[in-house]
């Protein structure tokens, strides 16, 4: 994966697959402390303790087309290369939280990439789920975008309308630039 936002797309689709109706992404950049924290939280079906223990193993997957699952192991590798870690908390029938952190100034840190593209793809595919994107940094404040808020504003126009999806993409891109610009 060439961008953090691609890893996040992969992790976020795990939440969709777990039947979550509410999925949030939190990104907190602390430039002063050289720390980038990424967090995906969902209210999906969660994982059993056994599955949770094995989830960073590439030979663990829920996919049925083959027996290797690489989403979490690749994300873990990307974090660990940059002096960070991945931690997963999960409770069956309650939800899952995946945390990852990295050093911002690590030479191996991937660029954030295009969060706008990531959410246009997700919201267009899963318009009935609630997505929340919280971006925060120590230097530029906070930005919160939620599909619940967008739906309120567009009334009975479907959120999958291409004009709406491309607006959401451009809007999140701008918020990312404003809050996380340069990361």
């Amino acid at each position: 994966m060439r961008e953090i936002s691609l890893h996040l797309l992969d992790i976020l689709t795990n939440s969709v697959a777990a039947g979550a109706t509410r999925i949030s992404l939190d990104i907190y950049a602390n430039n002063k402390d050289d720390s980038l924290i990424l967090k995906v939280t969902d209210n999906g079906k969660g994982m059993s303790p056994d599955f949770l223990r094995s989830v960073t193993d590439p030979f663990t997957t829920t996919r049925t087309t083959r027996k290797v699952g690489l989403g979490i192991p690749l994300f873990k590798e990307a974090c660990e290369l940059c002096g960070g870690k991945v931690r997963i908390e999960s409770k069956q029938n309650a939800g899952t939280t995946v945390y990852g952190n990295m050093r911002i100034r690590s030479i191996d840190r991937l660029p954030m990439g295009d969060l706008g593209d990531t959410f246009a793809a997700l919201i267009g595919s899963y318009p009935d789920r609630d997505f929340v994107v919280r971006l925060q940094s120590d230097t530029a404040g906070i930005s919160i975008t939620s599909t619940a808020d967008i739906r309120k504003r567009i009334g009975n126009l479907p959120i999958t309308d291409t004009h709406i999806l491309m607006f959401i993409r451009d809007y999140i891109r701008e918020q990312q630039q404003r809050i996380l610009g340069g990361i």
Partner: protein
Amino acid sequence: MKSLAELESIKKKAMSDLVARNTSGKRIVVGMATCGIAAGARPVMTQLIEELRTRGIEDVSVTMTGCLGLCRLEPMVEVIDEDGTKVTYVKVDENKAKRIISEHIVNGKVCEDLTIAAADRK
């Protein structure tokens, strides 16, 4: 800087267009498991949406799905026509995505050279 308030005007304009829309029932599905994402499926998907928007086509859905089972041929895009006929395009990039919209969706002509059948012959 964009503001969410702009959604109201997009909505007004889109709702007036909505009357003219019919539902063709065509669907586009993009493989977006780890393999697809790593191979570049995400920009392909947004290119498909962007191209539909540019052409004012609102009756074709674009959604992601899991692994389509042939990771070496990702990014893969399936176009499912009204009658359920399915065409599978392989190794799609942003330019090929534009072709799929203009040739297959708009003109109803399958891009034979981009299909899985053409990839098998190579």
